[in-house]
C-alpha cells in the first residue's frame, strides 16, 4: 500500500512524516523545505505500507520543479491513498488543493494539522461538518506534538483498503459549469490511455483550465474539443475559461470555509511584536546584522574554547605513543595516521561544526529565513535574482548539496542556474571549519569575518556578471512568510545529528584513510611526486609545495584540506611552517576553488555538465586570482 502526504508548502507534511518514520525528512519553517520525496516503510495494523513525503504544492497546476515532482508522483498510478495535510490556520486557501485532490478520484483523508495555530487565530473548525461536505474523512492533528497521529493512520488504513464505500461530496459547482465539465468528460472516453490513472473528471477540469501538462498528454482532436468548450465557457461568462474554473473553485473554497468555521477574536501573541521588529525597515536590518554577528561569535567562542585542549590531548598521546613504539616505525606510522585523523575530526571540525549546525537549525525552524528573504529582496534584485533565492544561498552555509537542490523552489530556469552557482560559492560548514580553524585561530576572528565579507562581495559580483550574460528578467518573489515557531530542542538536536552524521560516517573514515595514506606515503616519499607536480602552481601562490596534496584531498571533502594540512606539514601548530599571510592565501584559495565532489555531482544533476564544467572553471580561475591578489597585497602591506 502506498500512501502519500500531499499539501501546500509549510503545512507540516514532513513533521507528520517524521513522527511516523523517525527524523528522516528535513523539516524547517519555510515554504519549500522539502524539494524531493522521502519514502519510509511502516506498519499499519500488521500490513506493510509505504509512506511518501512529497514537496508542497498549491495546486495540481505546477510552477517549479519541486512541484512537478509532486504532481508526477500523484499521477503515476502507484498511489493507493492520499493524506491531504492542511494547515488549519490557512483553511480557506488550502481547500483549493483539497477540491482538486477529491476530483483526482483517489481515496483522500484530510488531516487538519496545526490546530493549535488555528485556535490561536480564533478559528473553530467543525471537522465533522467538513467531512460531510467534502465526502471524505477528516482528522484533527497537531503533528509537532504528536497529537492525533494514531487516529489519522487508523482512518488512512480503512480508506486505503478500498473497503470504505465512496460518499458523494455535498458541494457542487454551478450548474452550467458542471454541465460543460460533464460534456468534456464524455469526450475524453478512451483518449485517457496515456493518463490511465487520472480520473476523467480531473483531466476534464484541467483541460478547461488550459493546463499545458494535461493538454500535451492528449491527442490533437481532444485538444480541439477542449478548446471549443473553453471558448463556450468564456463566451457565457465573459472571462477566459481558466478564470471561470478558478473563480468557481475559489468561491467554493471560501464557501466551505465559512460553512465549517466560526471565527472569534484572535489571541494576541508576543510573536506579532517580534515579527514587527524583525521586518522593520531599519530595526529589521539591525536585528539581522546582530543575529548574524551573534551567530558568528557563538561558533567562534565555542570552537576556540574546545579546540586547543582537545588538540593538546591528542598531541601528547601521539608523542607518548612514539616513545613506546620506538622500535616499530611502521606500526607507529599507521597508528599516528589514524590518531591524527581522529584528532582532526574531534578537535578541529566538530567544535565548530556542532554549534554552527545547531545555529542553522534554530534559524530554519524559527522561521527567520522567509523574513531574511523579505528584507534582502532589493539586494537580490540588484544582482539579478529575487528574495526567494536567498533561501538556497543561506542553506549553502550549511552544505552546498542541499542548497543546490533547494534552487528547485525557483520557477525560472535562469534563476535556478544563477542561484545554484551562487550556492556553490557560499562557504559551507566544511569550509567554515577551515576559515575558523586556521584564519580565526591564527590570524584572529576579524580576518575570518573579512573572508566572509569578501565572499559576499564575490557572490554579488558573480550574480551581476551572470545576470548580465542572461539578461532575461527575474520573475520576482511571492513567498509565504509563516508565523514564528518556538523550536523544539529535540528536533534541533536530531536535525543537527542528521547533518553531522554526514561528516561522521562519510568524511571521517575518508579522513582517517587519507591520513593513513599520507602518513605511509610520507614514509615512502610518494607525496613528493604529487607535490613536485603541483610545485609550479604552489610557488606562484607562494605556498610550500607540501601543501599541494591537501588541495587534492580538499576536492573530496573541503574539511580534508585543513586536516590534511596538519598531516602534510607534520605539526598541529601550523605557524611553525606557514606565515600568517600564507595561511590567508591558502584559506582564500580553499574557500573559492572547485566545489567538492558531492556538490559537483548535484550540480551535474541540476544544471547539466556543460554549465557545471563552466562553473568549475570559473571557481578555479577566481580562486587563483583572489589568492594571487592576496599574496601581492600582503607583501606590499605587511599587516601581520
Amino acid at each position, binding site marked *: 500500500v502506498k500512501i502519500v502526504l500531499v499539501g501546500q508548502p509549510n503545512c507540516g507534511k514532513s513533521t507528520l512524516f517524521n513522527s511516523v518514520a523517525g527524523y528522516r525528512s528535513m523539516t524547517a519553517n519555510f515554504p519549500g523545505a522539502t524539494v524531493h520525496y522521502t519514502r519510509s516503510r511502516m506498519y499499519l495494523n500488521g500490513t506493510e505500507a509505504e509512506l511518501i513525503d512529497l514537496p508542497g504544492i498549491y495546486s495540481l497546476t505546477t510552477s517549479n520543479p519541486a512541484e512537478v515532482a509532486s504532481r508526477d508522483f500523484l499521477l503515476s498510478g502507484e498511489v493507493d491513498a492520499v493524506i491531504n495535510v492542511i494547515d488549519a490556520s490557512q483553511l480557506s486557501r488550502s481547500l483549493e488543493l483539497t477540491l482538486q485532490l477529491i476530483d483526482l478520484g483517489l481515496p483522500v483523508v484530510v488531516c487538519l494539522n496545526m490546530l493549535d495555530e488555528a485556535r490561536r487565530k480564533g478559528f473553530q473548525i467543525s471537522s465533522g461538518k467538513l467531512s460531510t461536505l467534502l465526502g471524505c474523512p477528516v482528522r484533527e492533528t497537531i503533528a509537532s506534538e504528536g497529537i492525533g497521529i494514531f487516529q489519522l493512520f487508523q482512518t488512512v488504513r480503512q480508506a486505503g483498503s478500498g473497503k470504505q464505500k465512496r460518499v458523494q461530496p455535498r458541494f457542487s459547482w454551478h450548474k452550467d459549469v458542471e454541465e460543460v465539465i460533464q460534456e468534456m468528460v464524455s469526450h475524453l472516453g478512451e483518449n485517457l490511455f496515456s493518463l490511465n490513472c487520472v480520473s476523467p473528471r480531473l483531466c476534464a477540469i484541467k483541460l478547461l483550465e488550459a493546463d499545458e501538462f494535461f493538454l500535451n498528454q492528449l491527442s490533437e482532436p481532444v485538444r480541439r474539443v477542449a478548446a471549443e468548450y473553453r471558448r463556450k465557457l468564456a463566451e457565457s461568462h465573459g472571462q477566459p475559461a481558466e478564470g471561470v474554473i478558478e473563480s468557481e473553485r*475559489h468561491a467554493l473554497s471560501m464557501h466551505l470555509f465559512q460553512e465549517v468555521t466560526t471565527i472569534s477574536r484572535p489571541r494576541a501573541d508576543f510573536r506579532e511584536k517580534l515579527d514587527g521588529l524583525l521586518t522593520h525597515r531599519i530595526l529589521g536590518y539591525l536585528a539581522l546584522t546582530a543575529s548574524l554577528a551573534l551567530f558568528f561569535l557563538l561558533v567562534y567562542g565555542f570552537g576556540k574554547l574546545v579546540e586547543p585542549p582537545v588538540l593538546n590531548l591528542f598531541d601528547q598521546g601521539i608523542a607518548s605513543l612514539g616513545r613506546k613504539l620506538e622500535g616499530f616505525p611502521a606500526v607507529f606510522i599507521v597508528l599516528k595516521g589514524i590518531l591524527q585523523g581522529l584528532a582532526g575530526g574531534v578537535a578541529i571540525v566538530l567544535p565548530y561544526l556542532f554549534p554552527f549546525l545547531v545555529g542553522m537549525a534554530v534559524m530554519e525552524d524559527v522561521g527567520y529565513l522567509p523574513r531574511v528573504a*523579505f528584507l534582502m529582496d532589493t539586494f537580490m*534584485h540588484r544582482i539579478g535574482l529575487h528574495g526567494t533565492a536567498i533561501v538556497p544561498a543561506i542553506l549553502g552555509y550549511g552544505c552546498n548539496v542541499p542548497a543546490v537542490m533547494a534552487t528547485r523552489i525557483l520557477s525560472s530556469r535562469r534563476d535556478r542556474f544563477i542561484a545554484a552557482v551562487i550556492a556553490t560559492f557560499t562557504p559551507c560548514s566544511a569550509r567554515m571549519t577551515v576559515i575558523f580553524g586556521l584564519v580565526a585561530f591564527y590570524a584572529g576572528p576579524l580576518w575570518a569575518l573579512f573572508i566572509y565579507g569578501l565572499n559576499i562581495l564575490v557572490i554579488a559580483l558573480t550574480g551581476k556578471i551572470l545576470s548580465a550574460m542572461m539578461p532575461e528578467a527575474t*520573475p*520576482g*518573489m511571492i513567498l509565504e512568510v509563516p508565523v514564528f515557531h518556538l523550536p523544539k530542542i529535540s528536533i534541533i538536536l536530531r536535525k543537527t545529528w542528521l547533518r553531522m552524521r554526514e561528516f561522521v560516517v562519510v568524511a571521517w573514515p575518508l579522513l582517517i584513510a587519507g591520513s593513513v595514506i599520507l602518513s605511509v606515503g610520507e614514509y615512502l616519499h610518494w607525496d613528493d611526486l604529487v607535490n613536485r607536480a603541483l610545485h609550479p602552481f604552489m610557488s606562484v601562490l607562494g605556498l610550500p609545495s607540501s601543501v599541494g596534496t591537501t588541495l587534492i584531498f580538499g576536492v573530496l571533502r573541503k574539511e580534508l584540506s585543513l586536516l590534511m594540512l596538519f598531516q602534510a606539514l607534520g605539526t598541529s601548530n601550523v605557524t611553525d611552517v606557514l606565515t600568517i599571510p600564507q595561511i590567508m592565501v591558502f584559506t582564500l584559495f580553499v574557500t573559492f576553488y572547485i566545489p567538492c565532489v558531492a556538490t559537483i555531482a548535484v550540480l551535474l544533476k541540476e544544471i547539466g555538465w556543460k554549465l557545471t564544467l563552466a562553473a568549475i572553471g570559473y571557481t578555479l580561475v577566481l580562486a587563483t586570482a583572489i589568492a594571487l591578489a592576496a599574496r601581492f597585497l600582503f607583501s606590499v602591506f605587511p599587516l601581520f
Partner: protein
Amino acid sequence: MTSRSDRIIKTPQVEEPTSPALAHKDLYSVPENSNVRIKQVAGTHALKEQLKQMGIFAGDLILVKRRVPFGGALLVEHHGAQLAISKVLAKQIVVEGPE
C-alpha cells in the same frame, strides 16, 4: 439628496481621479497598514498563475503590513497568511481602496 444619488450612479469613466476612495492604483503605492481590494492582476501569465495558485484572486482583501524603502519588497496579509512580494510584482497588481 440628489447629489448623493448622482454619485452612486456615476460610471467609472467620469469618476474623479483624485477621489482617494475610488482611485485606481497599484499595490506597491499603498501605504503601510492599509487595507485594499484587488481589482485585477496585470502583468504576465506566470504572475497571474502564481497568485491564483496561492489563492489570491481579484476581489480579495489585502492588508499592506510592511514596506522596505528603496524599492524593497512588501509584506502583506491575505486571508490570514503573510506574503512577501517583490516590487516588480506588486506594481502589476491593481487595487482599489483603502477601505
